[in-house]
């Protein structure tokens, strides 16, 4: 997962400024203006400057192809400027009387005569600092909220600079208006705009923006997640530019769908999901896909031999994870995965039943649960990697993420003697979401993380000694060192992956520790107020499912394992980010483990 935010192409687009000006003009005139402003506000000049803002990723709560939720810390002190033109009422008595009730008006005869003066205001030297919460969902558009008041200071220069009273007044008024704009208007504008972009003209608009992106920024082509990220970045950038809701380059997934999913298979997937929603009995068969029923039954049937059996079955299903060939399947997984997790806790409810019934007849019952489908496919992915298929260099970071996870699982599965216990840990390790940890543990303590940790140690108590260090790892805050411009070149990341995989495969402990620590950090590091809003809302669907699955713990564990496996894909992206942030930390760990740090990470 890489974030590539390119500031200059954004500002170099000639159409961008005109469009941004129009949008800003509309936005500024929408809200009721103070009485001193008697005409429409026109944005005459807009320049984003050359200095990009600093973005710091504090937390990514949710990540999928069509969803994103993250918290950024944004700081801007660039040279952007904005020139507005309007007309102001120069007679203070007139503005005073326009707001005072007429009954107590002193009713001056001519002292309140109006005098409108054209005014030119230049806003420059923006100093912004704030926490940005960005939530993107393909269905609901983009929501961008400032946690706090981002405006620290700005310089207002106008035609009245020689008159201190008016200057002060303007400064005060404009700051007030801008604060309002940032906190109330801008989220609404962006949301509306995103809905428009994803609406009828979604295709054309996104393809246009995509093109501009790709031409300017070749690295963006490499993967859908990358372009998605960049557009996210753009969004948060725009927030800083004096609240300009400019050109929203929502090119997420557009290339993804067109490139990696054929219309036929997407149609099938849609039918699958529909069949689940509508309880329809018809379920289209999808090639190269493993249905959950198969996987669960095989695991269920023979706990001790699970690793081998699963690997056997899965490999037999000819799901190979090699390079580009695997790509469509992966993406399919990812997309359907998001569907499953977004559609809440319905799945877990019925699942145990079907699984238990499927126990007897192995692989025969085709209880196709689409939500689970991706999970199974991911799990089958691990097995394939277990089987020894070395992962060739994949172009997208997403794929890398999958494969790495697979390795994790594989290594875990191999090293662990008791498969039933072992399989959950990898998923746990990859999942940092509190709610899911708690799901696995029958005792749900309010503090999800602690319970999770405890849970984990319980699981692994017998298996390995490497686990104990894990909880202590997260302590150093990695995000202090991280910078906004995290360019994660996937090509560069490849060597690292391969090297680390091999290393991880040989020594699961190092992998575990390395992989484990990052998820812990965001939660520990992020102050309470950051995570509160987003994480709580995120957990809600899982609270439901948690209650249900908790009753049948063993079945639930497996169910969760499957789900976790699916979630891993999503989680992996976040972890990689975190890992990036925690570069130093990881380096230390690697040194401890005896392996040299991957070279690619130093550059980024």
């Amino acid at each position, binding site marked *: 997962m890489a974030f590539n935010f390119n500031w200059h192409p954004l500002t170099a687009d000639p159409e961008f400024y005109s469009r941004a000006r129009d949008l800003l003009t509309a936005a500024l005139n929408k809200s009721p203006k103070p009485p001193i402003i008697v005409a429409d506000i026109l944005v005459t000049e807009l320049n984003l400057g050359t200095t990009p803002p600093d973005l710091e990723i504090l937390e990514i709560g949710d990540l999928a192809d069509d969803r994103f939720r993250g918290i950024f810390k944004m700081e801007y002190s660039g040279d952007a400027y904005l020139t507005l033109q309007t007309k102001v009422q120069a*007679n203070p008595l007139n503005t005073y009387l326009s707001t*005072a*009730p007429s009954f*107590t008006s002193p009713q001056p*005869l*001519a002292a309140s005569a109006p005098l409108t003066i054209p005014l030119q205001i230049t806003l420059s030297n923006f100093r912004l600092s704030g926490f940005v919460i960005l939530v993107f969902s393909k269905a609901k558009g983009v929501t961008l909220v400032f946690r706090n008041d981002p405006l620290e200071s700005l310089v207002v220069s106008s035609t009245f600079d020689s008159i201190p009273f008016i200057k002060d007044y303007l400064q005060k008024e404009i700051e007030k208006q801008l604060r309002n704009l940032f906190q109330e208007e801008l989220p609404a504008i962006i949301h509306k705009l995103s809905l428009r972009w994803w609406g009828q003209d979604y295709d054309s608009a996104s393809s246009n923006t995509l093109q501009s992106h790709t031409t300017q920024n070749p690295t963006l082509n490499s993967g859908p997640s990358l372009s998605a990220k960049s557009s996210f970045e753009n969004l948060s950038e725009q927030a800083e530019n004096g609240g300009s809701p400019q050109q929203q380059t929502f090119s997420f997934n557009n290339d993804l769908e067109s490139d990696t999913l054929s219309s036929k298979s997407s149609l099938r997937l849609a039918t699958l999901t529909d069949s689940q929603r509508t309880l329809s009995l018809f379920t289209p068969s999808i090639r190269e896909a493993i249905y959950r029923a198969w996987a669960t039954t095989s695991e269920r049937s023979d706990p001790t031999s699970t690793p081998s059996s699963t690997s056997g079955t899965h490999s037999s299903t000819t799901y190979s994870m090699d390079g580009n060939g695997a790509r469509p399947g992966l993406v399919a997984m990812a997309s359907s995965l998001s569907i499953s997790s977004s559609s809440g806790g319905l799945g877990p409810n019925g699942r145990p039943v079907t699984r238990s019934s499927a126990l007897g007849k192995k692989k025969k019952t085709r209880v196709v649960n689409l939500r689970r489908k991706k999970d199974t496919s991911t799990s089958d992915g691990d097995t394939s990697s277990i089987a020894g298929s070395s992962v060739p260099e994949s172009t997208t970071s997403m794929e890398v993420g999958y494969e790495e996870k697979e390795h994790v699982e594989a290594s875990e599965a191999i090293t662990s003697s008791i498969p039933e216990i072992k399989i959950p840990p990898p998923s746990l390790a990859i999942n940092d979401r509190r709610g899911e940890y708690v799901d696995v543990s029958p005792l749900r303590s309010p503090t999800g993380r602690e319970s999770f940790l405890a849970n984990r140690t319980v699981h692994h108590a017998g298996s390995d000694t490497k686990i104990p260090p894990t909880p202590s790892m997260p302590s150093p805050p990695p995000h202090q060192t991280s910078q906004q411009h995290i360019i994660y070149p996937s090509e560069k990341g490849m060597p690292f992956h391969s090297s680390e995989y091999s290393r991880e495969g040989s020594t699961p402990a190092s992998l575990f520790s390395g992989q484990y620590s990052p998820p812990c950090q965001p939660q520990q590091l992020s102050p309470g107020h950051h995570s509160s809003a987003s994480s709580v809302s995120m957990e809600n669907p899982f609270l439901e499912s948690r209650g249900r699955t908790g009753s049948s713990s063993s079945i639930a564990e497996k169910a969760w394992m499957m789900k976790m496996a699916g979630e891993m894909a999503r989680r992996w992206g976040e972890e990689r980010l975190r890992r990036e942030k925690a570069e130093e930390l990881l380096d230390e760990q690697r040194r401890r483990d005896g392996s040299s740090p991957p070279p690619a990470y130093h550059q980024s």
Partner: protein
Amino acid sequence: MLGFMDYVQKSFYRATKWDEDNSYANLNATARALLDFQTPKGLKLNISSLSSPNFATSYGLASLGVVDGSVSYLYSSRALDNVLNSGDVELKDAIFGYRDLKEITKPDAPRDWEIWQGGVRVDRRDTLLYGRMYLPASTLEALYLRRLAPTRQLKISAVSNSRLPNGGTILALLQQDNGKYSSEYLYSTDVALIGIRGLYNFGFDPRKALPHNSGNAAVDSRKIAGRFSAGAEVYWGLLNKSGGASTGFRYTTLPSNTGSPLTMTLTVNPIIGHFQATYAIKAGRGAVFCSRYDFNIYSYESDLVLGCEIWRRKQQQQQQTTKSETGAEENWQSNGFTTGGEKEDDVTGVLKARITQNFNIGLLWEGRFKQLLFSIGSNIDLKRRDQPFRTVGVEIQYNS
């Protein structure tokens, strides 16, 4: 159309011999009445009554999308016998229109107001109390009016509304009218606004005139055809440290004038360079035309508003009034504001119209139907062809 409570307040002024027009604030009252009249919006109903000579109540109901209303009460220590119900009131008293200024009179001597009874002074100053509650808006208006002396009046008005800054405002206004000149001092709590207004009438000084009963006074005043007044105002807001000032001049013909009555004003705001000139003339018995020109020497912004007022009378009265030339002169005299001795119920309605530079037309028809006073008005914007009628409204008033 004048609200009932405003009408009662005017009646209070008349009963206590207070000349409203001798104030700088009302220097261009004629032009305002002819050009800045409010057209009603939606449907408005007002039911009012003067239940006793000292007490008046009024209920208003307005429907413009949402229904809102107001309840108002008024108390006057002076018995207001000059308040007439809606069937009998003269339309020119109930409608703002051209102000026929009367001659300024010598104010009463303070001694004239003293009433002694058995060696004890028992006279009291006349007071008017008025309150109005707007119901859904939860706005309260209050007015305290006190005639402190024959030349002095204190007016305190207040508005209470939670949406206003500090929950409301109070305006205190101390008015002094000596006939020859008048001054006003005001303070508003809103921005701690302090204001001073003054008006000076050139020429005839009523205080130096011969006593009325000498017979010469009438001759004297008749010779004075017009009056020239000059005034100025200064405001300063203590809290926002900003102020305003203006000066103004007015020439108006007096009832003794033999020609067409006219009023001219010129107001200047030297601070922001604003000039305003108005000219109003009564062209004939039932028509008044008025124009107003605004110009700013700094921004070169200008504005022109034209308006007229046409009084519709009963036909038979019209014929009767076509008399000799001397009779016409008397007619003008009788049109004076306070020469209400003879009842002029020949007026059936008034049409007011104005047009601005932007082709914004305001039309207002005010009249009486049986015992009801009504006004129908509309605001028409000719520049918007698709929807020229901006507002349409009817207001109905019944007073008993």
